[in-house]
């Protein structure tokens, strides 16, 4: 069965702290995507990781991909309240180029 597992599913942290969200997947894939969803809103694409060792950074967020370990991480540096959201990872359902397999999401709450 194809699975994408995120860990943790819920995270409450203080501003200024660092933390990492993990995304493990069971399928053979070298494409992974991170999305952000604010409460009551749609999903926004954050990062597209297309190869082993890929690393992308945007502000206080950094995503990386290890296709051999089938693991992606989303690292938050010096968290600020504005980063509070639910973060989803998704993996291409190869060999199809049409479908994504989604993680359950990590709800991140950053307290002042």
């Amino acid at each position, binding site marked *: 069965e194809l699975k994408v597992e995120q860990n943790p599913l819920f995270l409450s942290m203080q501003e200024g702290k660092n933390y990492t969200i993990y995304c493990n997947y069971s399928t053979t894939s070298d494409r992974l995507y991170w999305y952000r969803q604010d409460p009551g809103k749609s999903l926004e694409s954050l990062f597209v990781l297309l190869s082993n060792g890929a690393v992308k950074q945007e502000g206080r967020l950094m995503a990386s991909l290890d296709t051999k370990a089938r693991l992606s991480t989303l690292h938050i540096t010096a968290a600020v309240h504005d980063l509070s959201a639910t973060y*989803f990872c998704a993996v291409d359902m190869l060999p199809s180029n049409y479908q994504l397999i989604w993680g359950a999401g990590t709800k991140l709450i950053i307290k002042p």
Partner: protein
Amino acid sequence: SQTIHQWPATLVQPVGSPLSLECTVEGTSNPNLYWYRQAAGRGLQLLFYSVGIGQISSEVPQNLSASRPQDRQFILSSKKLLLSDSGFYLCAWSTGGITEAFFGQGTRLTVV
């Protein structure tokens, strides 16, 4: 640039009533189109996807159907809504060789 329009934003419908949600994409040709549903506090469930006009793939058997009458138009329908159809419905598109999906604003459907 590409944009995606989804409407309505919110909808309250009685049980047994019909449903029609519409999604259109601008600025791209032959996109892959998707309908997702998200229950409150949960992850994404792929309902339908389409890789071309008239081509619909269903992922979950239910009382919903989808149609793609034009290249950039995707419609989600039901003849008779159930209480369990309540949720947040998201339309998305992707194109090219990667499956990065871009989402519409979503429709919050409440069946009463």
